[in-house]
């Protein structure tokens, strides 16, 4: 069985700092594999362990430097990597991204049975790319997947986090899964894997390779655009004291006052 795995390289958002003139300083910010995608990789590897002859192709849309991330996944046991990269792809929203990635899947893994994504990417946190890919491929999706319970050549059974509990869902293949973070330790690379990764060839697919035109990709092919970006500033009329012996008493008084309420 063939699996297309979609992962994204993201800036480590916990590392991003503000400069004095209210712009984001991305210098020295490390690029990491989107944390949710680690679980997508894990899910794909898990299936490969249970179904012989499974081949996993990892795809990412991003700049040239993302090749190193793809190679890392090959060290973990992923079979093959595809970089979807073109200057024209810049500024794509989730609609255009979904369209571009779906074309790449059809080009590089046309006989896929399953597409696996992460649930969110921490830079955008939209959780829309997976369903968008599924729509463009015209296959169903299951989002918020916590666990794969069973999988064979014909169907998959998964646990899904619904709003009020856990759903068990059975789906015919092909299907797209979006993986939540789970409670397991991610696989570690083996020495053999590193060797394989070093010699692995990563194929690059450009806009032309995908048969798309400039109107359909990147910022032009995106229905949404950012009109304004600003630093979140939320302030209240606050009062601040430094801890001293009677702080607890003062806090108690405040609590009573606030509980009585409505005295703005």
């Amino acid at each position, binding site marked *: 069985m063939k699996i297309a795995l979609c992962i994204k390289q993201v800036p480590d958002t916990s590392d991003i700092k*503000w400069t004095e003139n209210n712009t984001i300083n991305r210098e020295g910010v490390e690029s990491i594999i989107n944390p949710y995608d680690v679980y997508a990789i894990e899910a794909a590897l898990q299936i490969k362990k249970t179904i012989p002859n499974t081949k996993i192709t990892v795809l990412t849309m991003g700049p040239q430097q993302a090749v190193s991330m793809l190679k890392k996944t090959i060290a973990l046991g992923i079979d093959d990597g595809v970089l979807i990269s073109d200057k024209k792809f810049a500024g794509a929203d989730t609609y255009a991204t979904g369209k571009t990635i779906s074309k790449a899947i059809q080009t590089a893994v046309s006989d896929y049975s399953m597409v696996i994504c992460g649930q969110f990417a921490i830079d955008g946190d939209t959780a829309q790319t997976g369903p968008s890919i599924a729509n463009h491929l015209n296959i169903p999706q299951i989002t918020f997947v916590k666990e794969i319970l069973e999988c064979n050549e014909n169907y998959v059974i998964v646990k899904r986090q619904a709003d009020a509990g856990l759903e068990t869902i059975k789906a015919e293949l092909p299907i797209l899964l979006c993986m939540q973070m789970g409670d397991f330790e991610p696989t570690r690379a083996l020495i053999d894997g590193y060797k394989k990764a070093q010699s692995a060839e990563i194929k690059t697919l450009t806009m032309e390779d995908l048969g798309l035109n400039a109107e359909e990709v990147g910022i032009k092919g995106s229905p949404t655009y950012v009109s304004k970006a600003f630093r979140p500033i939320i302030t209240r009329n606050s009062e601040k004291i430094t801890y001293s012996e009677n702080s607890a008493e003062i806090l108690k008084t405040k609590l009573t006052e606030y509980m009585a309420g409505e005295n703005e």
Partner: protein
Amino acid sequence: MSENKNEILLYAEVTKEKFIHTVFFELAQKSAELAGKLGDCKISAMLFTAPDRLKDYKDGFLKSGIDKVYVFENEKFQNYNTELYSKLAIELIKEINPKIVLIGATNEGRDLAPRISSALHTGLTADCTDLDINEKGQLAATRPTFGGKLMATILCKTLPQMATVRPKVFKPLKEDILKETDFIVKTPDLSDFKPKTELLEFVKTLEDEINELDSAEIIVAGGKGAGSEAGFEVLREFAKALNGTLGATRGAVDMGIAPKCIQIGQTGKTVRPKIYIACGISGAIQHLVGMQDSDKIIAINTDENAPIFEIADFGIVGDMFKILPELIEILKKN
């Protein structure tokens, strides 16, 4: 396609307990405001329900200022199914051409919305913290990005303009907005429609704790500053002394000192208690978006520059493990 109408369409999600999800009423309240800015704008809802249940929902719609409800009735609508719901929603939207479609950012809504927007080749802004109509009459959807370090206002070139909003981001209906509501019942023939995904089982989890945070008047929330499980015990005791409910940051959850189900913030619960007491919490925006609308916010933090103080009504710069035991003593005495 014909001209898009001045209409805002809302998704009326039905919960497992067969209620209309509260986020729908919050969206209805916000839509009334947006409709006012657009002028001459109708607000409608789409509902998927098993036959004969509409009567249970009618009252809610009549009070929430909805002009029209498109009701899809079928035995198959006992449980949400992506393929089924998105197919009908897409058909409806193509038929009525609304300008704006709003959906609650629950797990169900976040599954459904991108499927609809993508099929309609239109834009969707996820998890908005604010919605407005700009001077050109466009939907201006604001949301945090870059891990909350940045807020972005997003516009959409195509119609309908779509957005999802988490529960409790907007205020609930303040008072009934009474309007004459039309109910347009549709009974689609789905005998030939065989979804490829099938729900085998549903197990309810953690309802109690989730609901408790929803309705709590006082929330005592702990962050990484609590340091350990023992540290969280102090917070639990404090919460008990105040008759409050315990909450946590993702930092604390990731450390393993607090359960995931009490996480507050962008990827957790959004809460709106009377008093929110943040202990050992730095005040990352992803946390703030989940609690910033609390009536009163108190912060205790050793770092006087912690951003949480900017949003607090009252702050104490100090060690929570000094002040809380003292306060617990005082509270116990009274």
